[in-house]
């Protein structure tokens, strides 16, 4: 269902482009390919992992159900058959054990891709992610490098309850020594996954279960096996001049929809797809805020000490004089995720929340203390 909605938005976007006429050339060339080959995020991840495993024999895959079951979400489909049980390993349900083994293998020079069925289970292994992987390069003064990728779905799914819905972006992004990536589109998924596997440092790769089935157009450049995206660079998904909206992962889609709604009301929103949570592309965010003078940060996770908090601090430190309004933070509700569908809908940000927040920064409506 989401795929269809996505396609509708893009088609509408491209028709809006032709109507307006005067669009910066860079947007036209970067947004949509004329070849219009579509790829789901699932296929993008699968192809990226496949190509990197094929290119480098040191890359191997480890996790629960990655092999025989073809992946809990079918991301690793066909890889066991192609590379064999020496390189695609099914583990018992022992996150602490297999994450430690993966980090130890990385110490020795292999390039493991460790899958967590969801990042909620990464908490079982977080000691190895932080203390054994992230800090080792520093503690050993560069002797030990840990070229490992921890990947899996992050954040809320649909109706899975409190213990299976948390977003871990801010937890991992606060730790020096880690790189944290959050793709949105198929291009992001392919490019960032390849960059993560090739990176000599530990990378936490936060996917989103609800995005796996969504299709996005991909150009020939993206489909090339040498394609990769730089870590630490955000992408401006939609240019605007009135308000900057930052988002990552699924919220980018929501922000783009909100930008559409705002454009009808005469507010031109600039949507930034963060792509890289750590290192954060402070330059792109600040340059955008210096242009628009207003900022709305959007994230799915808990509000306190979240990604939005860090972006607010960064903008206040670097571009305070440019702000014309207080920064608005849209985040998930400060409660464990409820199960009932109506409550769950209230606990995650919706498009209307982003629209309302953007209007508040433009002084279009009275400021309410409403949270997501």
């Amino acid at each position, binding site marked *: 269902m989401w795929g269809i909605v996505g396609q509708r938005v893009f088609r509408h976007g491209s028709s809006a482009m032709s109507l307006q006429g005067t669009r910066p050339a860079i947007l036209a060339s970067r947004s949509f390919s004329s070849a219009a080959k579509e790829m789901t995020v699932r296929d993008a991840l699968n192809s990226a992992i496949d190509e990197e495993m094929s290119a480098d024999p040191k890359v191997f895959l480890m996790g629960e159900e990655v092999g025989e079951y073809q992946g809990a979400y079918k991301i690793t489909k066909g890889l066991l058959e192609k590379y064999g049980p020496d390189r695609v390993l099914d583990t018992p349900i*022992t996150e602490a054990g297999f994450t430690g083994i993966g980090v130890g293998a990385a*110490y020795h020079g292999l390039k493991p891709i460790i899958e967590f069925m969801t990042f909620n289970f990464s908490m079982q292994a977080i000691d190895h992610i932080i203390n054994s992987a992230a800090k080792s390069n520093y503690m050993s003064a560069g002797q*030990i490098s840990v070229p490992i990728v921890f990947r899996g779905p992050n954040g809320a799914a649909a109706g899975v309850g409190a213990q299976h819905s948390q977003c871990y972006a801010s937890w991992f992004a606060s730790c020096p020594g880690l790189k944290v990536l959050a793709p949105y589109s198929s291009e992001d998924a392919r490019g960032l996954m390849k960059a993560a596997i090739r990176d000599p440092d530990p990378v936490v790769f936060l996917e989103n279960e609800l995005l796996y089935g969504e299709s996005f157009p991909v150009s020939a450049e993206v489909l090339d096996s040498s394609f990769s995206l730089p870590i630490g660079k955000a992408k401006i998904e939609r240019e605007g001049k009135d308000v900057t909206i930052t988002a990552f992962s699924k919220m980018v889609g929501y922000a783009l929809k909100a930008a559409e709604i705002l454009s009808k009301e005469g507010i031109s929103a600039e949507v930034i797809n963060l792509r890289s949570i750590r290192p954060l592309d402070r330059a792109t965010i600040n340059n955008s805020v210096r242009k628009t003078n207003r900022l709305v940060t959007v994230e799915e996770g808990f509000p306190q000490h979240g990604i939005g908090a860090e972006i607010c601090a960064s903008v206040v430190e670097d571009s305070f004089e440019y702000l014309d309004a207080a920064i608005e933070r849209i985040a998930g509700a400060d409660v464990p995720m409820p199960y009932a569908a109506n409550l769950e809908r209230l606990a995650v940000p919706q498009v209307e929340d982003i629209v309302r927040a953007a209007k508040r920064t433009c002084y279009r409506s009275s400021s309410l203390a409403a949270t997501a």
Partner: protein
Amino acid sequence: MALSHLSSTRSNRLLRPLAAAASSLCRPISTSTEPLVIETSIPFTPHKCEPPSRSVETNPQELLTFFRDMATMRRMEIAADSLYKAKLIRGFCHLYDGQEAVCVGMEASINKKDCIITAYRDHCTFLGRGGTLLEIFSELMGRQGGCSKGKGGSMHFYKKESGFYGGHGIVGAQVPLGCGLAFAQKYNKDENVTFALYGDGAANQGQLFEALNISALWDLPIILVCENNHCKDVNLFLLLDFLRLFFTLLLLWNRVLNGWLFGRWHGHC
């Protein structure tokens, strides 16, 4: 050395025959390479495997190097203890004195392509893998000349080129990491093994059993070495505290008893 100094002074002509007699009593230390077979004193207790032979072939020269290494390690740890008490080493300082034989014995039968990983009691293990005393003391005191350039400290010594992977502060974490090293050795088809050392405290850690389970399932070339130094059990200081508490209570009870028996308190009623 003292004896030779005495014999050199002219005034101590009386002591000269004594010195000569004393030097003839000194045992000469053999450096021969004639093979020597030693039987270990305590038998192995095997569990689902064949116990190794108790006869070890060595020679006097090799035994001397063992002694020299262990003695160096012992003196190094005692010196580290003094530095720690003088507050020149900060934070943590876990000493290996008493356990030297374990790492020296291990080193004697492995090579530098075999990997060793241990917890935070790593000074002597690092020395055994080819580290120098200067690197060790520099690291302990936070100097740039340290093996981790002063950024690691006592618990984070590494020597990757000699197959020493640390130096880990979290109890038990080194065991799954060691199984990972063994996994990489098997993956690369190296004919080498990994030694993961841990203690009686880490023996309780769940991740140890998780890693052991996976190692058995995947048949990894890992050897786990448990060094039971009883650190996790009641230690001497705890015992002294209890004794102190006991005697204080005894004294208090004595006073109470005296007060009641000899009616010193009746006057207050």
